[in-house]
C-alpha cells in the first residue's frame, strides 16, 4: 500500500503523457518529454538548492555535442551515444562545479550564462572544422537501427524517452525523500545552520549541481538522437532562459512542474506561432502575469486544488456512493 502511494503520482503523470501521445502529434509529444527532462535539472537547482542558472543550454549542448561527435566520427549506436552524452555531461559538471557553486546565487546565474556563450562560440567558430559551424553536424541517416526499441523511429523513440523520463522522475522523487533532499532544502535557506550542524555545504551543493546538469546533458543527448543533427543553435544565448521560464511557468520546486511547464510552453509555442508572428512576445507577457499572479506557476497553483478536489471526491464517494458515480 505504501509502495503504491509512492508510485501512483508518477504512474498517473506518465499515463497522462501516453494519453497525450494518442491525441496530439508525435513530434509534440517527443518535444514535451525531452523538454521536461531538460527542465527538471533547472527546477531542482532553483527549487531545491536555490540556485538560478541562466546557462542551462551549456550543459544541454555538452550532452548533445558529445553524442553528436560520437555519431559523426566514431559510431552509430544511439544507445551508446546517449550514454556518452551522460558521461561527458557528468565530467563537465564535475570540472566546472567546484568553481561555480562557490558563487552566490546571482553570480552563479551569470557564470553559467558565460559558459553557455563560450560553448556557443566554440561550436560555431573556434571548432568549426569539426563542428561545421552554424550548419552543425548532420548524421540522421548514419544512425543504426537498434533492436527492441528502435530509437531511429520517432514513435519508438517516444516510448524510450518516456521510460527515461519515468526513471528520471522516480530518481528525483527519491532524492526529495532522502536525507540528502532535506539537506538541499536546508542549504537553500540556511547554510549557516547546516554548517553548524556539521554538514559540508560545499559538497551538498556540488552534488546537486552535478546531478542537475548530468540530467540536462541527458536531455541534450536525447535531442541529439531524436533530431538527428546538432547545431550551435542549441546553446544560443537567446535560448538561455528557456528552462528558467518553463520552470517558473510549471511551478518552482514542484515535482511535476517541469512536465506541466513543458506541455504549456511547447503547446503555446505551437499554437501561438501559427497565429502570431511574434509569439515569443506573448510568452513574455504570460510570464509577467504568472509572476504577479502568485509566482507558484501552473502546477504550483493547481496541485493543492486538485488534492482538495480529489480528497473531497473520495470523501463524498464513501458517503453517497452510487450517486457520485452515475454523475
Amino acid at each position: 500500500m505504501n509502495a503504491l502511494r509512492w508510485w501512483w503520482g508518477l504512474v498517473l503523470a506518465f499515463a497522462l503523457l501516453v494519453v497525450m501521445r494518442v491525441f496530439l502529434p508525435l513530434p509534440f509529444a517527443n518535444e514535451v518529454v525531452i523538454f521536461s527532462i531538460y527542465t527538471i535539472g533547472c527546477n531542482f537547482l532553483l527549487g531545491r538548492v536555490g540556485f538560478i542558472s541562466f546557462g542551462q543550454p551549456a550543459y544541454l549542448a555538452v550532452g548533445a555535442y558529445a553524442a553528436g561527435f560520437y555519431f559523426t566520427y566514431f559510431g552509430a549506436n544511439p544507445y551508446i551515444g546517449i550514454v556518452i552524452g551522460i558521461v561527458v555531461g557528468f565530467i563537465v559538471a564535475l570540472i566546472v562545479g567546484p568553481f561555480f557553486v562557490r558563487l552566490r546565487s546571482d553570480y552563479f546565474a551569470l557564470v553559467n550564462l558565460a559558459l553557455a556563450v563560450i560553448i556557443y562560440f566554440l561550436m560555431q567558430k573556434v571548432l568549426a572544422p569539426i563542428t561545421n559551424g552554424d550548419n552543425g553536424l548532420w548524421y540522421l541517416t548514419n544512425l543504426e537501427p537498434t533492436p527492441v526499441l528502435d530509437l531511429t523511429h520517432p514513435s519508438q523513440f517516444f516510448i524510450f524517452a518516456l521510460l527515461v523520463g519515468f526513471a528520471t522522475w522516480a530518481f528525483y522523487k527519491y532524492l526529495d525523500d532522502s536525507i540528502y533532499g532535506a539537506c538541499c532544502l536546508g542549504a537553500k535557506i540556511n547554510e549557516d545552520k547546516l554548517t553548524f550542524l556539521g554538514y559540508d555545504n560545499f559538497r551538498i551543493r556540488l552534488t546537486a549541481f552535478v546531478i542537475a546538469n548530468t540530467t540536462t546533458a541527458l536531455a541534450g543527448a536525447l535531442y541529439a538522437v531524436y533530431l538527428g543533427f546538432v547545431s550551435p543553435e542549441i546553446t544560443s544565448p537567446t535560448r538561455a532562459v528557456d528552462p528558467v521560464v518553463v520552470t517558473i511557468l510549471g511551478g518552482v520546486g514542484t515535482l511535476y512542474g517541469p512536465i506541466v511547464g513543458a506541455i504549456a510552453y511547447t503547446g503555446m509555442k505551437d499554437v501561438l506561432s501559427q497565429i502570431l508572428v511574434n509569439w515569443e512576445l506573448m510568452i513574455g507577457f504570460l510570464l509577467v502575469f504568472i509572476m504577479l499572479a502568485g509566482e507558484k506557476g501552473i502546477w504550483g497553483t493547481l496541485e493543492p486544488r486538485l488534492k482538495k478536489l480529489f480528497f473531497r471526491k473520495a470523501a463524498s464517494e464513501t458517503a453517497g456512493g452510487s450517486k457520485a458515480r452515475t454523475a
Partner: protein
Amino acid sequence: MDGRAETIRADKVTKRFGGLTAVDQVSYVLHENEVAGIIGSNGAGKTTFFNLLTGYYLPDEGTISYCGEDVTRMTPQQRVARGMMRTFQLTSTFDNLSVVDNLGLAYFRAHKKSGLMQLLFNTRKSQRNEPKIVQTMDTFDLQDVRDREVKNLSLGEKRRLEIAMAILVDPKVLLLDEPLAGLAESEIQSILGVLRKHVGHQTILIVEHKLSHVQDFLQRLTVMHEGRIIADGTAEEALRHPEVRRSYWQIDVTAESAGVATP
C-alpha cells in the same frame, strides 16, 4: 577555578571590525560540566566572542583551544565534529522543513555515518521514528507540531526546536546565544526546565542580554563591557564587582538592582 578539566580556553583573543575592536585581548577558560554565562550590554562583544569560539569568525590575534587542542583556525564543521554545538541569536532552523525533519537532520549528522552516500541512501522517513528523536520531541513538547513546517511555528516553539536540535546532537559543549530573548515568561520557564536537566553532566555556555532569568541557574558569570571581561566569578561576586556596578545600569541585571540603577 578548580581541578576540573578545561574544555575551552581562549587566550588573548582579539577581533576587530574596521576601526572597532569588538573583542579586546579576552582570555577565558570554560571547564568541563560547568554552566557558565556571559552577559553584557548591547555591543559589549559577547556575541562576537561567542562567534570566535564557534568558528563563525576567525580571531585577528590570540588562540582558542578545545580540550587541549588548538582549534583557532578550524572550520565550524571541524569544531562540531569535536563536540561543540551552538545555537543562534536569531533563531536558526530550517523553515522549509517539518519539525521532525529538522531534528532528523541534526540527529543524522551526529549519530550516523553521514558521508554523501549515506545522505543519499537514507530516507527522511527512516529518521522520523528514531527513539531518540521521539523522546526529544516529548521533552521539548514538540509532539503536537511534529509534522508542521517550521515557518508556521511560534517563536517559542522555534527556539525550543533549535535547542532540541542542539541537545539531540549530544554535544560536549552546548553554546547558547541568547536562547531566551523575545520569549514569554512561560516559554522561558519551559526552556530553563529542560536545560536544568543537563546541569552537572554537560558543559553549557549561555550568552544573555538579560540576567534575571538565568542568574540562579548559572554556576559562574562573566561580565563583558566594551570588548573586555570586567568581572568573572559566581553571579554574586561578578555583580558586586565595582566596575560592573559602574556600568551595570546599562545592563538589565535583576529587578532589585535595576531599581538602584536608575540614574
